[in-house]
């Protein structure tokens, strides 16, 4: 498993996301209020835009969440599941802190390899 450093832990604003490029994939990185870190795909599956890192972070029944900034569907930061539309999920990536640096793995959390194709600019 290869880890990519994305930024200093201290640079992350609590309850706000940033987006990192990890092996060509867009990964949304969040630091929640309790200091925990989460990484999910930045692609909002409903709109097709890469924006999840810019949503509002919160909780639903205790579970940390982010709401898509476009049409407000809420996703679990833990499982990547959309809590408003069962069956829709975004990938979850492993994340850790090493020497004050936030690192994200380009492999999906769990054992499953990442299936989302790396992003290439679309031809016009």
């Amino acid at each position, binding site marked *: 498993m290869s880890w990519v450093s994305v930024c200093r832990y201290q640079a992350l604003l609590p309850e706000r996301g940033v987006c990192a490029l990890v092996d060509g994939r867009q990964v949304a990185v969040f630091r929640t209020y309790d200091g925990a870190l989460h990484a999910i795909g930045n692609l909002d599956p409903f709109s097709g835009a890469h924006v999840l890192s810019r949503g509002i972070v919160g909780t639903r029944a205790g579970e940390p969440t982010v709401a898509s900034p476009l049409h407000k569907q809420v996703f679990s930061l833990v499982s990547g599941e959309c809590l408003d539309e069962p069956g829709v999920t975004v990938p979850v990536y492993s994340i850790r802190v090493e020497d004050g640096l936030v690192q994200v793995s380009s492999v999906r959390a769990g054992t499953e390899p990442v299936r989302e194709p790396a992003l290439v600019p679309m031809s*016009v």
Partner: protein
Amino acid sequence: MSRIVVVGYGPTAHRFVETLRERGSGGRVTVIGEEPRPAYDRVALTSYLGGTSVEDLTYPVPEGTVTRLGGRVTAIDREARTVTLADGSAEPYDVLVLATGSSPFVPPVPGAEHAHVYRTIDDLDAIRLAAKDATEGVVVGGGLLGLEAADALRGLGLRTHIVEMSPWLMPRQVDEGGGAVLKGHIEALGLSVHAGAGVQEIVVGEQGVVTGLRKPDGTLIDAQIVVFSAGIRPRDELARDGGLEVGRRGGIVVDAGMRTSDPSIYAIGECALVGGPEKGMVYGLVGPCFTMAEVAADRITGGGASFEGADMSTKLKLLGVEVAQFGAMDGALDVTYMDPVGGVYKRLFISDDARTLLGGICVGDASPYSSLRPFVGKPLPAAPSDLLFTGSGAELDLPDDAQVCSCNNVSAGAVRVAIVDKGCADVPGIKACTRAGSTCGSCVPMLKQLLERSGVELSKALCEHFAYSRAELYDIVRVRGITTFSELITAHGQGRGCDICKPAVASILASLHNGHVLEGERAALQDTNDHFLANIQKNGTYSVVPRIPGGEITPDKLIVIGEVARDFGLYTKITGGQRIDLFGARVEQLPQIWRRLVEAGFESGHAYGKALRTVKSCVGSTWCRYGVQDSVGLAIALELRYRGLRAPHKLKSAVSGCARECAEARSKDFGIIATENGWNLYVGGNGGFKPRHADLLANDLSTDELIRTIDRFVMFYIRTADRLQRTAAWLESLDGGLGYLRQVIIDDSLGICAELDAQMRHHVSTYEDEWRATISDPEKLGRFVSFVNAPGVPDPSIVFETERDQIKPVNRPEVALQ
């Protein structure tokens, strides 16, 4: 599994397929509809002219349904069990369901082929197009649909006439007395009513252009557009040609299980005739049609439901006039209340022993409809005169078998079961559980009443994190002097917030303290728009809207906007708010763009914030020959005074220089119209989803009085409104309405005016341009990158194409959702 084929794809067909699916029928269902789109809500058709989109009207296609849109069935081969389509193809069936609805009746008068009808989206498109070159229109037919069509023509800006054969309007719903009151209302709106009149011919000039309608007495009504709405005819031609039994006056004969004379063919909805070929009835309202759909679905899946006739009660608000009819339209005894001045007519029909309510008619005030309709056929709940005078009847307890929702045939008992046993705690819950209230909505007040009566306290909680309404949270923050979200949620909420409460609290904190929206913890509360001080677009880019107070701009500043747009390759558009919007900026471009704009003297236009947007102006007395005051000067002063003020929802204003109202001030949250003596102030106007004209709050104010009154109005709104409640909805929900508002902000009945004034002074004196502050603060600038680990890299997923010489987002292929 058998193949079910449905012919016709209107509301009835939709309800049929939906019910089949709900019952778990997994068979193949094919729906063939002649219109080019899936079924849509025909009852709400008129709202399409008001801007409701086809998508909003369209019902979702139930899962697993095969649709053949734009396909007209031309024949049924009962031997072979197939239907044939106009394109020659055939579709085999085991069970056939005819849901072909009805078509508007067009009387065979000369010229009729040049007239319009009012039934489908395509009809409305044709009417809208024709209205462009017309100034006057006629609707033939003064019934429910005719008046709706007339309202639509009026809404399209035409001088409108209504021609009705009967001696009064809406003869099926109201009696002569009610008709007279109704006519008064309609004429007061500027429509001409020709009752007791028929049609001789549609007068058509050169090239088939309609020029008028001639009545049998020879008189001519000038009109360039004629719409027939003189009744409907069931579409029974397929059944007739296929040898099925049809009624003497039309309609496909069905039994109580909706089966036609061929046991494998059903007919439902407006094409079906229930009750025998001679005396049967065709139901022209959507409620009974839905019930028929449910009965047929039940039978086909092995059930034994039957259609027992239906309540034909109607309640509608047409041209702003409430009209309602329920139960019978006559009786041994009757009690009438009539107020010609107020335009109210109410009549109840009662059995000869004066005990049982038989029916009623209302014009101008339909409140008896909801409260009394459930008592039809039951003992009168109070003295008839009391029922008519007090009108509301809100205290009455409904018996369990009383029908509450006639569209979906739901009884008071069923609603009570939903509340008590299934735990529905609000109107949306009851809708989801019983369907009551989900069609025409006229029973929603009854649902609320049943909820309250069952002891359910309608929850005012903002979301799962706060048990308070926005107004209560505002008071908590204000009284306790709270300055951060964390403080508030720790002491008065639970969890860590969400996309509902965080922006609401951010707005409260901003209204009360007016710090920078991105300061400290507050940055985490904002919607992406406030977070990046720009409006997000569908492809994840943002738009930039500099403030142009009052719409006044120098040529030099216009040039700067043009240069910035050109240099950053932005799509440029003049907005409906008298300013200029630049679209397609990536986050990392926003600070560079704003650096240029701020340098040239621009500041944030807050297009992204729940804050003051624009104060539109007309050119006013400076140039206009009619203007009586300097509307541009006032608009600029107001825009600069209230800029940046955070509120429960956005605030819009406008100033017109005279009563011609070129600035459309009465569609604004606060609008000002100049008079010879000063200014008239109107409040609570709205465009948008539900337009509302603003109400006159005070007249002939001096500029100082005007500003003081607006200050208080806005601050009182900010203090007491709900989250995302515009002033229009707030004013309508304010107990005591405009009178109460005047007492509070003009007579100071609550003694809070000094505080409201002080809050506004604080806002005005501490205002700072958010963008100027942002570009000079490296910490705030840090977040304007696409990628935290690659600040220079633009987001590669953002791609544009060119249209009319400007950029446009490339529509990405739909990302598959299972």
